[in-house]
Every structure is written in structure tokens, then in C-alpha cells.
């Protein structure tokens, strides 16, 4: 490791522009003639649109155009799609109801877009929007998945009887049921996973530009995967063929999954730009974000975990109802299935697992991937169940986990996943030591003397990152391959540009990817530029989500670097009249091993471009591309321990200690990894203690602003004690597993296990607000 290479704690290259307000976000983009869009949205959770009268509004100052769903339909703009096909256990395909970018006849959640107003200023667009008269016939609405499945519930889509999208299963039901019937002990628990709003700091925005002379579209958008956005808008929404559509995702201020998906606004602004002849910009305000950004989680599950007389887990049975909201968002079907139920074995050797998942339409915002996407739901379910079982069995929670840990790799679970490497006990031991687990009893007694109830809880999580082998996900229903691409361009002076299909929206790629180049080529990271987020610059890519940029994106860069290095060595060997196999690349020089002959890197790069003296037949230039398709998921894992003190008078939870012991495989930049873990734990604590999306019974969103939706703040969080017990991932060249979501996955069950330990009752749902904790305490005594 050099001072800037792999493993170095390099401060982030991109932070100068972010910290000085010089980032260039979609809303910063200004083009000549640009006008502003305001979306008219449904105030009803469920209603028929009877009429839309725009006559008065059209005549208002500054108005350029007002367009509605009927016009969009007439112009052949397609339905928004879900790109992952899931089949029910009876073999029938999932029931995808039509999602119009602008609703033409029915609205299905508060915030459903109905029309777009384009005007000279945003104020004028809003004024005109208020003058548009939309006549609705309100219909009954349904909010919770369990209610939507009941006979007589309001029906959202004609395609989906009883609002059921699919009824899917994984694992072996009969062996699972048999093991449960024969078990020495069965733990039964109902698990709720609360609905969350992602809340990236930058709200969504888009700028649609139609160039009539070239019949060409440009879409600036807040996307985690601009190439996928282009592919979907081109192939399914009939906006334009790919060569006539450029998608640019410039600086993006956080995504957490919510910016993976293609939303109505991108499509509608592009279409509106063509219809009105002006570039059209839309920027979400915070309430629109709460209403329309895809939410996360929202599961209700029934769980049975069976044990033999030696406290070994013999079976796990899970029955989950997952609320997908009013429409199927882009990857919504994969989250409660292949990203969730495939992780239900956790860190444990469980011989029999069966999971049944029903996904359901309700009159709420669409639900899709949010930091962790399925794995937090699996981990919360499993770790709450194991903790509950330990209490019922009268064994220590650490011991029960230890008894059941998987210890040999590779390990094939009963639910598809094949774990490649890990050492779960190492993380457990490290976390318990860091938390001074054995000293807890004394701390609890001391806290009791102060009138506080102290509790401790752990969570041993595993997750799957680096999504994923294209053939494997294809066989499971994915509509795309999940490889990544890279191009390494060495300039004539030896500086380097890396074009990557990964997209950075807070992850620090401009630093970590440059560190990889510095490690391999010996050039300073200041001489390396990372180019991403523009379909005209980067040939193709699958974007950033599922902690895949390191494991998949960087692996593609490694492949391209291998090719660059091989060619540079050929040139150097030729110039120094040495054998190619004797050339080594060290400290920015190409050397003939065992001699003092050496050429600096830039000189070899220059030689490649002057082409005055290249090996016979070699093409000039030094630029190579590569595609990398992973061979497996990666499996980050770890152990988190939370220690809390509850004030029994107020129910307030004080997190007095939080320990995270993670195995992320090899690490490129420890500082950035720690930042990812800190942010993930903050979001996990948010889910456990503070956050929750609430609709009233009519489908009005009660948590539509930061006045009502409680985000975690610095003073809600303790200082975290982090450590790493890394086992390199054998599946990719850098041994990387991924670290972007672990914090959000591992932390909620640790906290709820700690709080329920403190208050002596297990009946507690997230978010564990002071009121809920206080009520639980009252019912426990």
C-alpha cells in the first residue's frame, strides 16, 4: 500500500467541491429557454378522474402548456414497469397493474401525478396549477397489506384480484413443517418491519431537453443508474431510441436506493419538452418527496423457529405480507423475495427453511429498495427471533448463536445462497469484547441504582452484496444483467481517466477508484479522474446499489487495468530491449527486474501515443475497456451490540453504547468504510427508534414533512465503536464484500433486543418511541 493506494485513509477528492457548495446537482443545471414544471397531484388516495378543466389556467400569466394523462396516453408513452418477474407458487406471473406516468382515469395514492403545468417561473406554474379544476369521484382506500387482502377490500387494479400481486415461496415446506412438528422447542413471533421514507438530502429533480433539429432528448436526473434509466425509458416508455436519448446524472446528493427507480417525472418532463418546445425542469419539494419517493420495508411476518434438545435450530418457517403500495416500482418485486427470503438462513446452519411471501397493492406510495433492501427485513426478523428463543430457552443469546453458527465454507443454505467465506465467531467475540459484555450485569445494577433500566442486545447479520451473476439473476426473473463496465484511458502524459458504470452519490468513488489506479499504476490520485453518470461518456453500466460498486464496479476496473498494464509492459520491454516477462511496474516506473533499467510511467504512455517506436504490429494508444460479471454474491457479515438505558418515567431510550464488528472483506479506504458504517447505523437507529411513515385510514400521509417524520440527528446517536474482522472475498479480484448497507441492516434488531431486554417484555414494534416503550413497560408490570 502506497500513501494513496489500497488501504490508505485518503481524504476524499470530491469533498472540496461538496464542502464549498460547488457541487453541480440537477437543480443547478440551467439551459437557454428553460422553463419550470409543477405537477398536479391527487389529493385522494383512491379516486376516478371525471374531468380535468385547464381552460382558465391556460390563460394565466407565463403559462406555456398544461398536459394531462390522456394526452400522454395518446402520444404512446408507455406504462412504468417493474423489471423483475416473479411467479407465484401456482406458476402464474405477478400481476402488474398499469402505472401511467400521468394518471389517465384513476388515481391510487395521494401524490399520484395527474397533470403537468409548464410556465416561465415556478410561481406561475403553481398559480396555474391551482386554477386547473380536476373533478374526482373518491373511492374507498386501503392502507395496510393485511387489510387489502381481506374479502371486500377496495380493489386497486383489475389485474390483481384481492390486491394480491404474487404469492411466492422459497425453500421446502414439508421438511420445514416436519421439523417444527418434531421440535423440542418452537419459538413463535410476529414481526413488523416499519415503513420508512428514504429522505436523501437532495430531493429528486429532472431537466428534460428536446432538441427538435436533431430529434434528440437529454435528461438530467437524480439517478443512481443513468444507463438503466436510459434503457428503460427507451425500451419501455417509448420516449426515444437509445441513440436519441442521453441521460446525465451529475452530482447526486444521496439516494439510499430511492434514486434507482424510474419515476413518472423524468418521462413526463422529456415528453413535455417535446410538446411545449422548451426545456422543462422539475425539482421535488420535501413534501413531494415524502409523498412520491419510493418508500422502504413495510412487512408483517409470522415466524416459527424450531430447536432440538441441544438448542440447534432445525427449521425456520416464515409467512410474510409485504406492502408494495399503489404500483409496482422498478425493482419492487425482487426486494421481498430474492433479496429477502434468500438471507433467512442468517449466519446459522438451518437444515430446513420455508418462506411464503404475499405482495399486496395498497393506496400508498410505491415501496421498493431502501438501504439494505430485503436484508434488513430478513435480519430483523431472524435476530429478533433468535433473541426471543434465547430468552425462552434460558440460554445466553451469544451462546445460542454460537451453537448454530456456520463454520465451514462454502456453505449452501436451503434458500439458494452459497456463502463463500466468513468467520462469524470472530466478529461475535470482537463485539462482545469491545462492549465488555461480561461487565454488563454490574452496569445494569449501577443503572438501577439511578432508577434507570439498562438492557443489552446483539444482532449477528449477514447480507448479500455485489449483485450479481447475470445468468443467475436472469434465471430468477431479473430483466437486466448485473455486470459492470469500465474503461481506463491513459493520456499521453500518463494521467488517467477511468470511465465507470458505477455512479457515485455519496460513496466517494472519485477517491477509492483513484486509489485503485494509484495502487496499480503508481500515479498520484490527483492524476486520476473518475468519469461517471453520463450515457454519452460511459458506454454502459448498471449503476450503484446493493453495495456493488466496490465488488463489481472496481472488479471491472481491475480487468481494464490488467489490460493496460499488459500493454504498457509490452511497450516498455520493447523500448528497453528486455523480455516482457522481466518487466515489473513499481512506484510509477516500469523496470527490468534485477537491473537498474527503468522507464517512468509517463514515458511509456507517451511512447504509446507518439507511436514512433512500438512493437511491430501494435496499435497506438493506451486505453482498454472491460466488462465484469460477478461469479457470486458477496457476503458481508458481522455482529452489532447495543446497550441502552430506559427512563421508566418517560420511556425515553438513551443509547449508551453501540458496537459494530464487521467483515467487509478487503478495504480500499478505511475512512470511507467507517463513514458508510456510521451513516448506516444512523439510519438503522432511525428505523428502530424514530422513523415511521404513517397514513391515516383515508390514505392521507400524516408524516409528510420533517415536522412529523423524525429523522435521526447527531444528538440521537452515541459514538460508535467499530472494528473489522475481514475475511477476503474469494469471488472477486480485490477480495471486496461491500459495506454500504451493513450498518442499516445490523443495527435495528440489536437496538430492539436491547430495549426489550431492559423493559422485560418482548412486545414492542419499531419505531420504539418513548410512548411505545412507556406503554410496554406499563403492560409488563
Amino acid at each position, binding site marked *: 500500500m502506497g500513501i494513496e493506494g489500497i488501504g490508505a485513509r485518503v481524504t476524499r477528492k470530491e469533498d472540496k467541491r461538496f464542502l464549498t457548495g460547488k457541487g453541480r446537482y440537477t437543480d443547478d443545471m440551467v439551459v437557454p429557454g428553460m422553463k419550470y414544471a409543477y405537477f398536479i397531484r391527487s389529493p385522494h388516495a383512491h379516486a376516478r378522474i371525471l374531468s380535468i378543466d385547464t381552460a382558465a389556467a391556460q390563460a394565466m400569466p407565463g403559462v406555456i402548456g398544461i398536459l394531462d394523462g390522456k394526452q400522454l396516453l395518446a402520444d404512446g408513452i408507455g406504462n412504468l414497469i417493474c423489471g423483475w418477474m416473479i411467479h407465484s407458487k401456482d406458476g402464474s406471473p405477478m400481476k402488474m397493474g398499469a402505472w401511467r406516468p400521468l394518471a389517465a382515469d384513476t388515481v391510487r395514492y395521494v401524490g399520484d401525478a395527474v397533470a403537468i403545468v409548464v410556465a416561465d417561473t415556478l410561481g406561475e406554474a403553481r398559480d396555474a396549477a*391551482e386554477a386547473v379544476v380536476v373533478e374526482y369521484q373518491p373511492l374507498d382506500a386501503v392502507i395496510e397489506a393485511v387489510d387489502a387482502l381481506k374479502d371486500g377490500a377496495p380493489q386497486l387494479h383489475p389485474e390483481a384480484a384481492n390486491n394480491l400481486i404474487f404469492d411466492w415461496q422459497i425453500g421446502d415446506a414439508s421438511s420445514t413443517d416436519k421439523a417444527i412438528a418434531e421440535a423440542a422447542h418452537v419459538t413463535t413471533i410476529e414481526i413488523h418491519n416499519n415503513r420508512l421514507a428514504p429522505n436523501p438530502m437532495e430531493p429528486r429533480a429532472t431537466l428534460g431537453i428536446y432538441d427538435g433539429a436533431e430529434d434528440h432528448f437529454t435528461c438530467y436526473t437524480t439517478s443512481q443508474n443513468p444507463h438503466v434509466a436510459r434503457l428503460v425509458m427507451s425500451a419501455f416508455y417509448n420516449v426515444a431510441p437509445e441513440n436519441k436519448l442521453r441521460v446525465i446524472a451529475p452530482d447526486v446528493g444521496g439516494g439510499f436506493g430511492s434514486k434507482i427507480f424510474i419515476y413518472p417525472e423524468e418521462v413526463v418532463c422529456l415528453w413535455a419538452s417535446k410538446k411545449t418546445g422548451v426545456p422543462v425542469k422539475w425539482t421535488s419539494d420535501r*413534501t413531494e418527496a415524502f409523498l412520491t419517493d419510493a418508500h422502504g420495508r413495510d412487512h408483517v411476518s409470522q415466524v416459527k423457529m424450531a430447536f432440538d434438545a441441544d438448542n440447534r435450530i432445525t427449521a425456520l418457517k416464515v409467512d410474510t405480507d409485504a406492502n408494495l403500495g399503489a404500483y409496482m416500482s422498478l425493482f419492487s418485486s425482487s426486494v421481498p423475495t430474492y433479496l429477502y427470503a434468500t438471507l433467512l438462513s442468517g449466519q446459522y446452519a438451518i437444515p430446513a427453511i420455508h418462506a411464503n411471501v404475499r405482495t399486496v397493492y395498497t393506496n400508498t406510495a410505491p415501496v421498493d429498495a431502501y438501504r439494505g433492501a430485503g436484508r434488513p427485513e430478513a435480519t430483523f426478523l431472524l435476530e429478533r427471533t433468535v433473541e426471543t428463543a434465547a430468552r425462552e430457552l434460558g440460554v445466553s443469546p451469544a451462546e445460542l448463536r454460537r451453537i448454530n453458527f456456520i463454520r465451514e465454507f462454502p456453505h449452501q443454505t436451503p434458500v439458494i445462497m452459497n456463502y463463500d467465506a466468513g468467520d462469524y465467531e470472530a466478529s461475535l467475540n470482537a463485539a462482545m469484547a469491545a462492549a465488555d459484555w461480561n461487565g454488563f450485569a454490574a452496569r445494569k445494577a449501577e443503572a438501577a441504582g439511578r432508577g434507570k433500566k439498562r438492557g443489552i442486545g446483539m444482532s449477528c447479520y449477514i447480507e448479500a452484496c455485489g449483485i450479481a451473476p447475470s445468468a443467475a439473476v436472469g434465471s430468477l426473473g431479473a430483466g437486466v444483467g448485473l455486470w459492470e463496465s469500465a474503461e481506463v484511458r491513459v493520456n499521453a502524459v500518463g494521467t488517467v481517466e477511468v470511465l465507470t458504470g458505477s455512479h457515485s452519490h455519496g460513496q466517494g468513488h472519485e477517491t477509492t477508484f483513484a486509489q485503485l489506479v494509484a495502487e496499480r499504476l503508481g500515479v498520484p490520485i490527483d492524476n486520476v479522474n473518475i468519469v461517471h453518470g453520463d450515457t454519452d461518456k460511459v458506454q454502459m453500466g448498471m449503476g450503484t446499489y446493493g453495495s456493488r460498486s466496490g465488488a463489481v464496479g472496481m472488479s471491472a476496473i481491475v480487468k481494464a487495468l490488467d489490460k493496460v498494464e499488459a500493454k504498457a509492459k509490452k511497450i516498455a520491454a520493447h523500448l528497453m530491449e528486455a523480455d516482457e516477462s522481466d518487466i515489473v511496474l513499481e512506484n510509477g516506473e516500469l523496470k527490468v527486474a534485477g537491473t537498474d533499467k527503468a522507464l517512468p510511467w509517463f514515458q511509456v504512455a507517451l511512447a504509446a501515443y507518439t507511436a514512433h517506436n512500438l512493437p511491430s504490429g501494435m496499435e497506438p494508444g493506451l486505453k482498454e475497456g472491460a466488462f465484469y460479471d460477478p461469479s457470486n454474491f458477496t457476503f458481508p457479515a458481522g455482529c452489532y451490540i447495543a446497550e441502552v438505558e430506559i427512563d421508566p418515567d*418517560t420511556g425515553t431510550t438513551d443509547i449508551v453504547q453501540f458496537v459494530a464488528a464487521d467483515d467487509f472483506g478487503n478495504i480500499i479506504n478505511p475512512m470511507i468504510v467507517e463513514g458508510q458504517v456510521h451513516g448506516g447505523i444512523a439510519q438503522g437507529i432511525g428505523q428502530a427508534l*424514530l422513523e415511521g411513515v404513517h397514513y391515516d385510514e383515508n390514505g392521507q400521509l400524516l408524516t409528510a414533512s420533517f*415536522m412529523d417524520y423524525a*429523522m435521526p440527528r447527531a444528538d*440521537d446517536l452515541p459514538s460508535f465503536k467499530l472494528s473489522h474482522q475481514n475475511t477476503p472475498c474469494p469471488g472477486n479480484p480485490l477480495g471486496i464484500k461491500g459495506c454500504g448497507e451493513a450498518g442499516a441492516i445490523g443495527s435495528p434488531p440489536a437496538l430492539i433486543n436491547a430495549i426489550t431486554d431492559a423493559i422485560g417484555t418482548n412486545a414492542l414494534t419499531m419505531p420504539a*418511541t*418513548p410512548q411505545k416503550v412507556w406503554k410496554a413497560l406499563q403492560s409488563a408490570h
Partner: protein
Amino acid sequence: MYATSYHRPSSVSEAAALLAATDEAKYVSGGMTLIPTMKQRLAAPAALVDLRHVADMKGIRIDGSRVRIGAATPHAEVAASSALRSACPAVTVLAGLIGDPHVRHMGTIGGSIANNDPAADYPALALALAATIVTDRREIAADDFFTGLFETALEAGELVTAITFDLPEKAGYAKVRNPASR
């Protein structure tokens, strides 16, 4: 925000006259609730009458055991008042806990009292200290003033000019914060 007109009176009588002169006019002081509400187009006053430059409505006076805080006094001034801190530190502590520094320098005690947001601090103080709410028309006991959620005994156009209370023997202030909107 919709277009509005802005007026800056320097006396209570001028303020009342300006308010009466325009239909749908509203008093504004710190604007901590009104301005965000206007930005969200949930309020659309035709005129704003700014109370922050009415001298009679500003400042803190301690007269023996009686305290008078002008309605247009910002929270930061209350929090920083050394006279008040030695007379009744609970009041300065309370003022120092309101919102954030920006809010404390803009928001005023009169606005807080008149708005009667259940999350606000001053209504609790007024009740606990049996304060009197002084308006341009009368004096109202705190117990009679706060009538419900965002509801008060104020009549249309009635203006809170000061809050007065007797110094208590002892006082303390503890706050259970709304985790979202604290």
C-alpha cells in the same frame, strides 16, 4: 408564496390602523410559523403588518416582583437577559431551549403566545406562572387565554402587546421534545 404587501408601523395604534385598512391583513412578528405557512401557500394574507419595530412592544422590565416582557421581544433577548436570569432563571432557560439560534433571534414571545402551537414553550410558561396576556384591548389571564389547539381568546384583529407575571418563589422548566420537530 403569493404576493403580499408589507407594512412597518412604529406604534401599536399605527399597527392596528394598518391591520384594519386591508382585508385579510395579518400581523407578523418573527414569522416563524406564518412565513413557512405562506411559503407552502397555506396562508395568503393580503398585507403583513410587521410588529418588530414597535418600541412599546419590545424589551424586558422587572418592576419589583412583576415582570413585563414586550410581545415583540425575541427569544434570544429573553435568554440573554441577566436581570431575568437572576430573578427567575427558569424563564431564560426556557427561552434558550426554543428552536435553534436562527429561530431564537427571529421568533418572539408574543408570536409564540398568540399562535398557541402545542409544541411551543411560552404557552406552558404563561400557564405555569399564571401570567397575564396584555393586548391592545384588555388583559387576559393565561388560564382563560389558551382555549385549544392553535386557539386563543383573541378576537379578530386583537394584538398581544406584552406578557406579565409575578416572579415565582421557585421555578424550573423541563421539556419533552417532539423527536421530529424539536
